[in-house]
């Protein structure tokens, strides 16, 4: 009984491989959870679909964007809106795990520390891919034509997915601090609303009052939507894409560090 064979510390490559598999296992668990609570997935998809229909048919007639078919202007905004609102699920899922005690159990297992957070954001990456794919389909059904062709559209989707991955780290940082899923949701939704609606996601910035234009022009969702439009509608895109990528990298860096720190500090 006293002679317990301790496993030798695995070499660095072995540790990295183990961390990879731990992350994959946690991501798989989160995806199964997502698939088995289809209500959540359906609502995550229905909401942006409603936005498409509302802005295409109810409000769209009143919004004039010179030189562009409004539905082509709208869809890049919808992609950004869909992943921003969907990201709230990241915070809700994590704070649910926090409350249920599953995170405490994970912390007593010999698994990689990073797998809990990585598994969450990677599963959400898969969810975002699905939501964006559905939005592309819905967009085409209501007249979206992606004027600059498939390559531009795919590049724009790549930008959206990268941005969504970074944003989900922001919501991980939130979810780790709030052990009440409803509070997490209440905290996240207004932030996302503000970011989406002060951006040019649905209407051109120059239709807003001057002070709001300043706010709108200097925030990440606007940068994303602007870059997407440049890629989808055609024209010079390099600068806008670079600005969006810088925002994405900055958000990812700041919140991944914050999240990792608060996870490491849990239990102090």
């Amino acid at each position: 009984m006293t002679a317990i064979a301790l496993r030798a510390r695995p070499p660095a490559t072995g540790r990295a491989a183990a961390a990879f598999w731990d992350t994959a296992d946690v991501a798989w668990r989160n995806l199964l959870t997502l698939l088995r609570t289809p209500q959540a997935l359906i609502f995550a998809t229905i909401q942006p679909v409603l936005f498409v229909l509302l802005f295409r048919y109810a409000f769209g007639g009143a919004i004039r964007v010179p030189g562009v078919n409004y539905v082509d202007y709208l869809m890049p905004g919808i992609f950004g809106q869909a992943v921003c609102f969907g990201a709230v699920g990241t915070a809700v899922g994590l704070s649910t795990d926090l409350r249920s005690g599953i995170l405490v159990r994970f912390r007593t297992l010999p698994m990689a520390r990073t797998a809990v957070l990585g598994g969450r954001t990677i599963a959400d990456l898969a969810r975002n891919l699905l939501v964006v794919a559905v939005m592309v389909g819905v967009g085409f059904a209501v007249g979206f034509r992606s004027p600059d062709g498939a390559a531009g559209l795919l590049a724009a989707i790549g930008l959206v997915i990268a941005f969504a991955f970074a944003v989900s780290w922001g919501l991980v940082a939130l979810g780790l601090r709030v052990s009440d899923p409803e509070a997490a949701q209440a905290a996240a939704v207004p932030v996302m609303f503000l970011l989406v609606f002060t951006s040019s996601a649905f209407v051109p910035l120059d239709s807003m009052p001057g002070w709001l234009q300043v706010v709108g022009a200097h925030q990440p969702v606007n940068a994303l939507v602007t870059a997407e439009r440049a890629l989808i509608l055609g024209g010079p895109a390099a600068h806008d894409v670079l600005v969006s990528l810088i925002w994405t990298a900055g958000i990812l860096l700041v919140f991944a560090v914050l999240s990792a720190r608060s996870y490491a500090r849990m239990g102090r």
Partner: protein
Amino acid sequence: MSSPPIQAEGLRKNFGKVTALDGLSFQVPAGSVLGLLGPNGSGKTTAVSILSTSLRPDAGHASVCGLDVVADAAAVRGLIGFAGQFAAVDPNLTGRENLVLIGRLSRVGRSQARGRADELLDSFGLTSAAGRLARTYSGGMRRRLDVAAALLHRPPVLFLDEPTTGLDPESRLGLWESVRSLAQSGTTVLLTTQYLDEADALSDQIVIINSGRVVDTGTPAELKSRLGAVVFSLGFATPDQAEAARAALASRGYQPEGSGTDIAVRSGSGSGELTQVLRALEGRAPDPASVAVREPTLDDVFLAVTRGGISQISEKGKAA
């Protein structure tokens, strides 16, 4: 030289202004079950969280199989199983998926995790529910699944934090059986409980804690014997009568306890002492309306401890 599987030395932990642990020390010998007994808020969960590496102590040391729970946390995690106060199973996974996931994360290989999961499902009576989502399980089933999940990598040391809280009597007995057979197979178990009968039924040693420190320790039999062999319960018609009886008993050197119309008197010499007790009342107080002789339970220990009267009892125990 071998270190005890579980050792805590002077553990301190504050949460803001609340002192959860105030210099807690104990150890658990190999292959035994230690019951950490205490009321709500006494620090049981804090102690288990520190020992199972999910919480850091502010001061003091704790080790599992000689490995420090802070400095060697990663190695400690390979040696321990932990089942917390709330059944931490994933409601959206099946019973088997839950176990395989925890097995994988415990670094048991995939095929081994599957085999072990089936084994555990069988021994915890969950085989027929293995393919159902855990959200359809009863409280008892979730709890059993949770304990099974702690055992996937065959840990030599197991922590169970209030494993039967909220369980129906049958599930409770089933879990007791599982803990007993684990202990028989050589697993060292630390379990916390606020149920005295549970500590009595399962533990080789009991450590009673209150306000984050040890207030008494011993085998269940030792703790009970410190309270004397039997307790006489006397019931009176009115509080006044009981008061008179208390005074009479005290004047004869007894230490009557209880309030209102009830009096409890402990005896070290057995039920034969009843006649002396009743004689002590003769002429000084009315006859009791009811008299009962009972074995002391851990409730008696516990009540004495939480009233702060344990030093007295411990002295008596040493003298006896």
